[in-house]
Each structure stands twice: as structure tokens, then as C-alpha cells.
């Protein structure tokens, strides 16, 4: 066994365990990556918690997460329910709705950079059909973050496919039984379907939260953290202070806080889910 898993043991030690511990050490030092680190105790943390830009990045990231993740899950679930019926061209719809979620990364950011362009972009053009004069989107500090949230909806196809699979895994016998007992559509969804797919929902929730804590590409490509720091995401700030300002000690402190927050959030979601999530065959997982 050890021969087989040795690559992972080495990889885990070198690329995960060592960096985690090293970044804990760096977080207590003044370090510019070039010269050796100098111990400064809690200075980085003190400076960080007193820094408005730091708290701004926290707020930007939290706002993005709290708005976009629940809405993404809701949309994905809605789309999956729509597709989970006998309809013509179902396969086409599924593919078409799923496909954009693969257009991730820089290509998506470039495309939406154009979509949101206030003068020639698609978004304001479509709004003009309805007589609405759209805002400046990415160029306005008040709307830039919301633009990125809207953009995130474009990628719900991935979660949708997973929910669809979950929905198709709900035994028809259960649905039939509920129908015979006179349950309506809504009530069947609420009391049968939703509990049955709650593990999938939970998993997507955790993934979605962790993913949106790490937003980087959009900020790097589309907004450069602006305008006026309105899209200064946590990881973008971390990257900037480490690799543009060479404050690796300070960034390591940011990294550790991120790590702890991710752990806590995962733990809380798991705990909460014990109450709400139904696992087939008892709580074996």
C-alpha cells in the first residue's frame, strides 16, 4: 500500500503540509521573499486588522459569496427542475445550459468584459430594448461587484447537471407514493425531493462558498480590483501584497486567516447539515 500511495505522501508533505506550516511561520515575520524572514511576532496580524483595505477585501468577498452562492444554487435547482420533465429537445436545452459553465477563466472574463461595456456592450443594448438605460457596470464602483455576481450566474450549468442527476436518482416509487397520498407538487418537492437531494445540495454549497472565497481571475482580468477597490477580492489583495508589494509576511497572515475561515465555514455547514441533510441508510457518512 505504501508503495502505491507514496507519491501522494510526498506530495502532501512537500506541497501541502510544509507550505501550511511555513506560511504560519512567515505570518509572524517581516519577509520580502528575497531576504531572510525577520521575526516580528504578531505585527502582521495587528497591522492587518487595523487596515481598512483588508476589511474592504473581506467585505467584498463576503458580499459576493453571500449574494452569489445562494442565488446560483437556487437558479441551478430551478433549471434542473425545469429540465427534469418530459419535454421536447431536452437534451439540447441541457447541453446549451451546461456549456457556458465550461467557459471559465480568462475567456469568460474577456467575453463578459465586453458584455458589460457601457457603450458598446451587449448588456446595456439588451436593456435598451426595454427602455432602460443601463449603468456603467464594471466602471462604476456601485455596480462593479454586482456585475461579477451576475456573471457568476452564467456558470450555474455545472451545478445544474449535478442537481439533475440527483433529481433523477430520487426513486419514482417514493414520488408515486406521495402522489397517491394526495400530496401536491410543491409538497412533494418540499417533503420528498428536497430531502432526497440534500446531500448534493450541501456538497455544492460547500464547494460554492470555498470557490467564491478564492475569486481571483475576474478581478485580475476585468477590474484590477477597482474601480475604487469595489472588487478588491481577498485573494486578489493577498496576491497583490505578496507579489507586487513583496510583503510576503503580511500576505501569509492573510493566507492563514483564509485557511481558518474556510475550515470554520466548512465545519459550520457540516454541523448545520446534520440537522437538515438526509443520508440514505442513516448517518453513515
Amino acid at each position, binding site marked *: 500500500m505504501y508503495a502505491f500511495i507514496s507519491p501522494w505522501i510526498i506530495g502532501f508533505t512537500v506541497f501541502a503540509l*510544509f507550505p501550511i506550516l511555513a506560511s504560519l511561520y512567515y505570518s509572524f515575520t517581516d519577509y520580502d521573499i528575497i531576504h531572510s524572514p525577520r521575526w516580528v511576532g504578531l505585527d502582521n496580524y495587528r497591522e492587518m486588522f487595523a487596515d481598512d483595505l483588508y476589511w474592504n477585501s473581506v467585505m467584498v468577498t463576503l458580499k459576493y459569496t453571500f449574494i452569489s452562492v445562494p442565488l446560483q444554487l437556487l437558479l441551478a435547482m430551478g433549471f434542473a427542475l425545469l429540465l427534469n420533465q418530459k*419535454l421536447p429537445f431536452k437534451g439540447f436545452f441541457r447541453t446549451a445550459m451546461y456549456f457556458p459553465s465550461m467557459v*471559465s*477563466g480568462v475567456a469568460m*472574463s474577456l467575453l463578459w468584459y465586453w458584455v458589460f461595456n457601457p457603450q458598446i456592450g451587449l448588456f446595456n443594448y439588451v436593456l435598451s430594448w426595454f427602455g432602460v438605460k443601463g449603468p456603467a457596470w464594471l466602471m462604476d464602483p456601485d455596480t462593479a461587484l454586482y456585475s461579477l455576481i451576475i456573471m457568476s450566474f452564467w456558470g450555474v450549468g455545472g451545478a445544474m447537471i449535478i442537481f439533475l442527476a440527483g433529481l433523477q436518482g430520487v426513486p419514482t416509487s417514493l414520488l408515486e407514493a406521495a402522489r397517491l397520498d394526495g400530496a401536491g407538487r410543491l409538497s412533494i418537492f418540499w417533503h420528498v425531493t428536497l430531502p432526497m437531494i440534500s446531500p448534493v445540495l450541501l456538497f455544492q454549497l460547500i464547494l460554492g462558498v470555498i470557490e467564491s472565497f478564492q475569486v481571483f481571475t475576474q478581478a485580475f482580468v476585468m477590474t484590477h480590483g477597482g474601480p475604487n477597490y469595489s472588487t478588491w477580492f481577498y485573494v486578489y489583495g493577498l496576491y497583490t501584497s505578496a507579489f507586487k508589494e513583496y510583503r510576503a509576511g503580511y500576505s501569509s497572515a492573510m493566507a492563514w486567516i483564509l485557511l481558518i475561515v474556510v475550515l470554520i465555514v466548512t465545519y459550520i455547514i457540516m454541523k448545520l447539515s446534520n440537522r437538515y441533510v438526509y443520508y440514505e441508510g442513516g448517518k453513515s457518512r
Partner: protein
Amino acid sequence: MITSNRMQESEVWTANRPRRKVDFTRVLSFILLILITLTMLMPLVFMVTTSFKAQRETMQYPPTLFPDSLQFSNYVDIFSRLQFGTMYQNSLMIAGITVLATLLSSSLVAYGFARFRGTGRNLMFMLLLSTMMLPYPAIMIPQFVLFSKLGWVDTFLPLIVPAFFGSAYNIFLLRQFFANLPEELFDAGRMDGCTEIGMYWKIALPLSGAAMATVAIFSFIYSWNDLLTPVLYLNSSDMFTLPVGMASLTSSKFRVAPWHLLMVASVLALLPIVILFILAQKRFVEGIVLTGIK
């Protein structure tokens, strides 16, 4: 007699629960789906058509759906103006090696976790699962220090080498797959005098086509789209990967954003993914279902 009875029954049935209502929901769903699909596809359609427009036309308002004249030259220009060919090659090479390395290492480790019960296996498996949650930004600084001490900055090594040590998601996925293979196969293999490594190679791998394809596709897309890692490590422009080079298109060095080139770049960047998607569409969806990840 029986038939007419049944017909009466069905008439009663339709009278009590009018079919029209059900149809109405389905028609509504259908219309909704059409609207959603159109909305979601619209940016993509414009992406493709804009990539064929002359730069002048990209500046027009309202945006035209179809170009006045097809500028195929855009697809040539991008190669001369952006070192696009070099970047494309770099990305393909890195993604290719990453896929092979991931397949090999992750399947090996997964086999180890699936087939043996050594001491500490469960603890290690828990550790493996927890690294799936580990945010890359939290560990990137020490990794950078490590790789720069090795003199690997501005080489592809930092992007490739970690793949040789397995990635948590893929190990997990393949482990689930291997663990479900019937034990009899391995018993038979053992009787034929097959070694463990032989059984991994001759029994487990050949049976895992779908799972391996999934891993290949996911690791390709991940590597192909990754921006943060190459941004950290690659400095000289002839080492750039596609995402790094494309990200520079929005930088301020362009007075006016070259929209047509932006879209050409996006289309070309999507091409391998589209090809993969078409080739493996069925597997793709299966794979996503298998892993529960995007």
C-alpha cells in the same frame, strides 16, 4: 365491454384532473427553457460573430449580430500581434503533461487507497479529503519560495511537477471507482501469479476507462484555464500560457480595447474544450455526476 369501461374510467380521470393544466405547466416550462437558453447562449453567439468583425465595426452601437464583412484575417492577426502561437503551444504542452502525470499518479495512489488496509490508512484518507478544501492561495507563498529556491521560476516545472504527486479530487474519484471493482477479478489475477502492480496495470486500469476519461478532462480544463499559478511563475512573454497572455489584452497598454482580437482569443481558447466536449459529451456528463464537481 372491458375496453369501454376503461375508456369511461379514463374520461372520468380527465374530467376530474384536467389534462390541460398539466400541459400548461409543461408549455410554460418549455417557453421558460427557450428564454433561458437564448439568454445563456447570446454572449457566446456574439463572441463568435464579433471575432470575425473588423475593429471599426466592433466599436459600433448597437452591436451587430452578424458582421458586415467576415474578417478571417483576425485569426491570422492574433498570431502575429500576440505571440499567440507560442502561448497556445505552451498551454497545450503544460496541459498535456499535466493530464498524463495526473492520470498516472492519481490512479496509482487511488489504487493503493482502494485495495490495501495498512495502518493509518483511514487517517491518511481523511487528510487527503481535507486537502480538497485547502485553498491554493493559502499555500502559494511558501510554494513560491520553495520553487524559487530550486531555480524553477520562469520555467514550466512549478506548473507540471505537482501533478506527478496526485491531486486529491482525482484520487478520491478513482478510489471510489476502484473500490467498486469486483474482488473476484483480483483473486483470479492473484491465482495467475499477477503482482499488485501487474493487477493495477492489467486489471484495474483497463476497466476504468470512464473514470480515467473524466479525470483527464477535468485536469485538462483545470490546467488550461489556470491563471493564478502561471501568473506567479512565468515572467518572460515567450513562456506565457494562454490565460496569462490573454489577461494582458485588457491592460492599459491598449488605448482602445481590441475587441475583435479579444473575441478571437476567447474563441481559440475555447476550441480544445469544445472539441473535448463534443468527443466525450456523454462521458462528460457521467463524469460530472460521478464526481459531483464542476
